[in-house]
């Protein structure tokens, strides 16, 4: 069980949250212009890093808000929590 700091409610246990997978995936601006391969890449291909992973979480049992978490997949250490409207913190940057 990990503890996640909801940007609104503060630290809560993992059981209150839902993980929404990798974050910062951008939908192609013009879907008709991309190849099937690129579209499949967008829909299905996800990073599987050993280490720092940027992911979306939702405080399902609390304030019901989505936000971003930068988490180490080896140690489960949470390196940064930031709102959907915040910029992605750079690896090695402040807090990450």
């Amino acid at each position, binding site marked *: 069980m990990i503890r996640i700091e909801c940007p*609104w409610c*503060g630290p809560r*246990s993992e059981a209150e949250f839902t993980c929404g997978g990798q974050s910062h995936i951008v939908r192609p601006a013009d879907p008709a212009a991309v190849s099937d391969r690129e579209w499949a890449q967008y829909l299905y291909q996800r990073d599987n890093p050993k280490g720092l992973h940027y992911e979306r979480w939702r405080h399902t*049992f*609390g*304030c019901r*808000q989505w936000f971003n978490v930068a988490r180490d997949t080896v140690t489960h250490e949470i390196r940064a929590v930031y709102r959907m409207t915040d910029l992605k913190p750079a690896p090695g940057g402040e807090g990450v």
Partner: protein
Amino acid sequence: MAKLDRATPLAGTGLERAGLCVAENTGLGLIRLQAFHRRPGAVEELTARLGIEPPGPGSLRSERDRQWFWSAPGEWLIAIPAGTEDAVLGALRAQLDGLFVVLSAITDSQVALDITGEAVREVLARGSTVDFHPASFGAGNCVLTRFAGVPVMLASPGRGEQILLFADRSLARYLLDWFEAASIDC
């Protein structure tokens, strides 16, 4: 209507133990106010129109016969005397006219439980990982949490050790059963 009025979620049943009492609170009407919190100035605008600042995350605020509970960014639960929903909705709609907000009466979709007794914090701690020590959950605090596996709001309005619980109405019987099982030694 009299028939409907009597159809409260727990039909008057509750739990009475030496250290813990759970009773349905049928005296509250509930209104939900939702504003678009990401628009800059949205909460300030609400505050100016209402004449009071709605409570921030994790807290509640009492004002006349209204209690405001923070339930999400830009969203509050307002508890008022049961039966006054239409009047309060009308008054709030007039006050907030023109703002991008949604007001809904949700009394009948919810159950409110009064939880009292000297074991109340100990029993609450059996249902959630939130810290219920008075130092972190005292008068004026409210939390939305996973409690007994389901989403609930717990509030400490400040009347001694009385805790107020709000949940979806369909969870009422389950929650009462849970309190009964979880407080067998109280």
